[in-house]
């Protein structure tokens, strides 16, 4: 049967087939399109048969890949034709040619509706099919009730009802509001009793979608699903035509088990038992057979059953059965099964604690990393990534690096990203981490984003022990003949900073360092030139007196670049040239970079944020989000992929030190760029307009830091009494939460940790300082003493917060009588899950805390924590960093949005203005960055007066919900110690609290005289950074 019913169409297809080349084909197509176009123009002469024929031809041409930009109207109008043949063509071709956004579709909504509610079953089917395939939101709103009616009608034939079920699914996906949950759960339960398996298959797809959005509403359907599975598993009364190679509809089985994965648990013991029986039967009874199709079908069912077992938290025995099966699968030759084995192992890691068992298969998994099939390699890579922890990180990362040598282009980016993340997360020591990243840059520099090397610089800067090592490594790489530019950047930076530490080694004198870096200068891009110039300045500084020749060489280069095309370079060259003539003062100006503040790794965040696009939410993801609701003892780190990303925080914490030069501070922006990843999930790669190290150099060059600092001290002393008078009670009640408070010698420690801390055991960290650090970031150490370390990790979502306390026993003996109590202030609802009485030796316990912010307040929750070690009872009271800014989310408003709001709030208690005196004198950019740190988005340009600053943010609490807050600061350039602060929001209470909160951060606190150190003091940084602070693998690793 090679000929269609339409001769003209067949002839045309034959003509196309007989074309010898593309050109001929195009000519033939163009001729035909011309013909159709003229025929459509004088439509009168067209018979229905001809119209039908032309429209099919159009579809054929379209399918060949040619643009068909006319005739849509004629096609769509066929839908309204009175006879079946034309109507059919109209419907089918329309749903191929147009998509849901096409305006022509709107014109036929009425016709389609008439067909759906009409009596003609064939028309109903055509209409349902088209709407099911390309129906958009508008169809959803106008047709959903009619489609629902057809689905539940007892007079419709199955052929209509199954189409109605899927058509409704489409409409529901376009607009979930069209299915009213209340009425539908009962109807759904009835529909699941359907005897016709075609209808049931369609209904089950609809059900999966409904239940994935709201499992709660469909509890009554759960037993029905179990019954369907039972019926199929026992092959009871399944018509022959619904078995596939002897297996009762594998698709319906899979769908049903998928639906069950959306119910959090199955409580009814009867249903649970029945279900486990079915699952057990599937797990045990699936054999490998010769017939490929039968094998695939039975394994489709088996893998779905595995997923369901994992979801249901089956008994240990059944779980280990699953792991054993997967272990078997990842070793088989059959590629599909091996692929699925690897994939399901990765999924299993997300839901259950099977890391140790899976580790036993590590060697096997690594073999798959070398499989010729990229699909398998990808799965192996994912699995290795998921199963990596401190114990196997070295081995796995080294495998990945080795693989990088041979990996094809398509995988290199993903590989290097994953290797970098693992190295950072689980590094057993920092020199290894540096090694890994340098190797990465060397082998796959194109795929190493700037984030990665910035991170190395941060770690090296913060770890003195690491500096000579890193510098020596960088020096080694420079000897290589071909070098990636990123390597030039990182090497130049490291050698500029720490090259002098190598001075006594061969080949590392300033002169030699300069020579080898200078070799690269002619071939690098502008951004690298900038770094190299800074490096030269540093080399110059370190070799001040002895080497006149070197000095001359460097100065010549500075001179040369003074007329460089790039302004940034010009400026650097000019400034460095001038500075270099300052003699001894140069050493102060170009001193070593200060330590970086701890910041969230952009990489890790990126990894957490990777998004997936699926029709229904992934059941596994839903489940992993529900997990860890009770305290549990874990011996390992939380799984890499298990944690839920905090959505409302920007990674980049602007540091005051970066913003000292006024003209520069505006350029610190992050521009997220979406780089499509070959395998799927888009990865957000953040590229900064200006690199972190560069800017720091910039700010170092400017000497004013020491000056304002000492000025500030002076003023602070003078204004001391004022400061107390100004903010009044606020300062005394709840200690100031800014970072700067940590420099106060007396500190407010006593206030928070209370007097009864006269324990024998003293904290080994500055608790006050830790608290302040955590006020501006979301993970870190809260408390530490010789026996225990308390870490904290927080996620904030609108007015909800989720805190996890990590209690790590540092001893080889258990800590007993562990107790934790939260004393929440009235504005917070805090729920603490149960705390185990004992922490085993060297173990870590996680205690999640759920927090709801009821309203704005500056009060702080206190954790009353105690334990006994040996005979010592230790009791501490720790403030929890649940402060106002955690519930703020910066928002950027345009002038058109801002001014109406600002005017609308012109009522006294909603908008409050105050002249604040005794303000710590800050340059405006620094104040802006202080605001950013508090989650107040500074909107440049909203206020035309350069001495003013306007900021916007959204505050979240249960009473206010999301509420816009607007802030304006007017400073007096003559007197920086006073300013006028205006705060406005829709809630007077919030306005007051926010105003006080900001005030607290603006008021200066008397601080100790800064020692006249050569290193300029960073006014807002905690001076000493404890060792754990620098640990790369999210510092929680240190808790073990």
């Amino acid at each position, binding site marked *: *049967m*090679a000929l*269609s019913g339409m001769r003209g169409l*067949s002839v045309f*297809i034959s003509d196309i087939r007989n074309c010898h080349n593309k050109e001929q084909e195009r000519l033939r197509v163009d001729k035909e399109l011309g013909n159709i176009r003229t025929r459509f123009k004088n439509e009168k002469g067209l018979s229905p048969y001809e119209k039908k024929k032309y429209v099919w031809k159009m*579809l*054929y041409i379209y*399918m*060949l*890949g040619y*643009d068909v930009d006319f005739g849509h109207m004629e096609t769509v109008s066929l839908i309204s034709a009175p006879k*079946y*043949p034309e109507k*059919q063509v109209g419907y089918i071709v329309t749903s*191929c040619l147009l*998509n*849901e*956004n096409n305006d022509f579709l709107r014109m036929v909504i009425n016709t389609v509706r008439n067909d759906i509610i009409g009596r003609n079953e*064939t028309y109903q089917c055509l209409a349902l099919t088209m709407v*099911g*395939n390309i129906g958009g939101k508008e169809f959803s709103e106008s047709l959903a009730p009619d489609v629902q009616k057809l689905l539940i009608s007892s007079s419709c034939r199955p052929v209509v009802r*199954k*189409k109605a079920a*899927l*058509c409704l*699914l489409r409409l529901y*996906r376009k607009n979930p509001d069209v299915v009213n949950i209340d009425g539908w759960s009962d109807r759904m339960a009835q529909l699941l009793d359907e005897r016709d*398996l*075609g209808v049931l*298959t*369609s209904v089950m*797809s609809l059900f999966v979608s409904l239940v994935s959005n709201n499992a709660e509403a469909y509890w009554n359907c759960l037993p029905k699903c179990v019954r369907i599975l039972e019926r199929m598993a026992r092959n009871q009364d399944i*018509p022959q*035509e*619904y078995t*596939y190679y002897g297996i009762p*509809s594998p*698709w*319906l089985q*899979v769908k049903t088990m*998928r639906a069950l994965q959306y119910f959090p648990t199955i409580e009814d013991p009867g249903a649970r038992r029945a279900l486990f029986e079915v699952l057990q039967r599937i797990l045990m009874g699936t054999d490998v057979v010769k017939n490929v199709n039968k094998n*695939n*079908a039975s394994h*489709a069912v088996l893998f*779905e059953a595995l997923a369901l077992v994992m979801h249901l938290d089956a008994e240990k025995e059944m779980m280990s059965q699953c792991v054993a099966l997967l272990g078997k699968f990842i070793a088989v030759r059959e*590629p*599909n099964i091996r692929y*699925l084995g690897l994939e399901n192992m990765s999924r299993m890691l997300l839901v259950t604690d099977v890391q140790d068992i899976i580790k036993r298969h590590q060697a096997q998994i690594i073999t798959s990393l070398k499989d*010729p*099939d*990229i699909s*398998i390699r*990808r799965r192996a890579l994912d699995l290795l990534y998921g199963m990596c922890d401190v114990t196997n990180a070295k081995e796995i990362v080294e495998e990945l690096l080795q693989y990088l040598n041979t990996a094809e282009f398509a995988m290199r980016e993903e590989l290097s990203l994953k290797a970098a993340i693992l190295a950072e997360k689980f590094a057993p020591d920092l020199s290894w981490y540096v090694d890994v990243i340098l190797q990465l840059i060397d082998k796959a520099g194109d795929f190493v984003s700037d984030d990665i090397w910035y991170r190395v610089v941060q770690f090296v800067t913060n770890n003195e022990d690491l500096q000579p090592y890193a510098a020596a490594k960088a020096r080694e790489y420079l000897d290589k003949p071909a070098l990636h530019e990123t390597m030039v950047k990182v090497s130049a930076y490291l050698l500029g900073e720490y090259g002098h530490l190598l001075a006594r080694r061969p080949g590392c004198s300033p002169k030699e360092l300069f020579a080898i870096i200078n070799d690269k200068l002619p071939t690098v891009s502008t951004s690298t030139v900038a770094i190299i110039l800074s490096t030269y300045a540093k080399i110059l500084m370190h070799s001040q007196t002895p080497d006149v020749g070197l000095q001359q060489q460097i100065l010549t280069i500075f001179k040369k670049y003074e007329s460089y095309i790039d302004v940034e370079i010009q400026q650097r060259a000019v400034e460095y040239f001038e500075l270099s003539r300052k003699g001894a003062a140069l050493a102060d100006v170009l001193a070593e970079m200060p330590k970086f503040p701890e910041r969230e790794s952009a990489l890790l965040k990126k990894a957490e944020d990777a*998004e*997936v*696009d*699926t*029709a229904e939410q992934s059941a596994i993801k839903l489940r992993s989000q529900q997990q860890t609701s009770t305290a549990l003892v874990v011996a390992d780190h939380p799984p890499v992929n298990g944690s839920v990303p905090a959505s409302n925080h920007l990674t980049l914490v602007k540091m005051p030190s970066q913003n000292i030069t006024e003209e520069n501070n505006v350029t610190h922006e992050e521009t997220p760029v979406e780089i499509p990843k*070959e395998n*799927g999930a888009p990865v957000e790669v953040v590229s900064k307009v200006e690199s972190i190290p560069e800017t720091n150099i910039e700010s170092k060059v400017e000497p004013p830091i020491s000056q304002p600092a000492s000025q500030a001290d002076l003023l602070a002393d003078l204004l001391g009494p004022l400061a107390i008078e100004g903010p009044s009670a606020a300062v005394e009640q709840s200690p100031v939460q800014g970072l700067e408070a940590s420099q106060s010698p007396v500190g407010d420690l006593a206030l928070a940790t209370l007097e009864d801390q006269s324990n024998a055991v003293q904290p080994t960290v500055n608790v006050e300082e830790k608290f302040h650090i955590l006020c501006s970031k979301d993970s870190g150490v809260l408390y530490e003493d010789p026996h225990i370390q308390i870490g904290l990790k927080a996620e904030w979502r609108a007015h909800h917060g989720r805190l996890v306390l990590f209690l790590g026993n540092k001893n080889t003996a258990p800590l007993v009588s562990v107790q934790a109590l939260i004393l929440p202030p009235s504005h917070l609802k805090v729920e603490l899950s149960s705390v185990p009485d004992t922490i085993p030796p060297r173990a870590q316990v996680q205690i999640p805390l759920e927090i709801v912010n009821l309203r704005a307040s500056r009060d702080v929750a206190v954790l009353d924590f105690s334990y006994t070690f040996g005979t010592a009872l230790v009791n501490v009271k720790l403030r929890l960093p649940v402060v106002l800014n955690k519930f703020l989310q910066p928002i950027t408003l345009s002038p058109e949005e801002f001014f109406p709001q600002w005017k609308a709030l012109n009522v006294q208690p909603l908008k409050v203005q105050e002249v604040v005196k005794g303000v710590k004198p800050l340059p405006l950019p620094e104040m802006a960055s202080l605001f950013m740190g508090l989650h107040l988005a500074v909107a440049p340009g909203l206020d035309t007066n350069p001495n003013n600053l306007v900021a916007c943010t959204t505050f979240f609490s249960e009473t206010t919900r999301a509420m816009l807050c607007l802030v304006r600061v007017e400073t007096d350039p003559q007197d920086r110690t006073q300013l006028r602060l205006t705060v406005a929001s829709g809630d007077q209470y919030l306005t007051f609290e926010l105003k006080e909160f900001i005030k607290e951060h603006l008021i200066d606190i008397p601080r100790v005289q800064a020692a006249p150190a050569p290193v300029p003091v960073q006014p807002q940084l905690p001076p000493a950074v404890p060792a754990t602070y620098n640990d790369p693998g999210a510092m929680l690793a240190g808790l073990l």
Partner: protein
Amino acid sequence: MIRFILLQNRQGKTRLAKYYVPLEDSEKHKVEYEVHRLVVNRDPKFTNFVEFRTHKVIYRRYAGLFFSMCVDITDNELAYLECIHLFVEILDHFFSNVCELDLVFNFHKVYLILDEFILAGELQETSKRAIIERMGELEKLE
């Protein structure tokens, strides 16, 4: 859910393309080109699954024809793989021993069959008999 179904020959000529998600024409052409390139050179000993952008293509080769379905990464791969085979069996039954030429000259019939088999990106009917009978009914109406 199935995002789209493609039927392409080894040269990359599209014999059937059905999209269940709204794509612009240019995007469709790109997708067809990319999917063809993705599957055509894969070794027959490889898996039938390839990652494609944020989704996954499940494909199977019958003589010179590639049947590809793009599905969500969380979907059950083997179920869709057999779904392809069931579709081929239906075509085979309908055309009694189907070959590429049948699909070329009767492409409009193939669309009709597909609409009875898959709707809204989900499986609608898995009984071969039901679909063949339904096609018989429809042919009588023409």
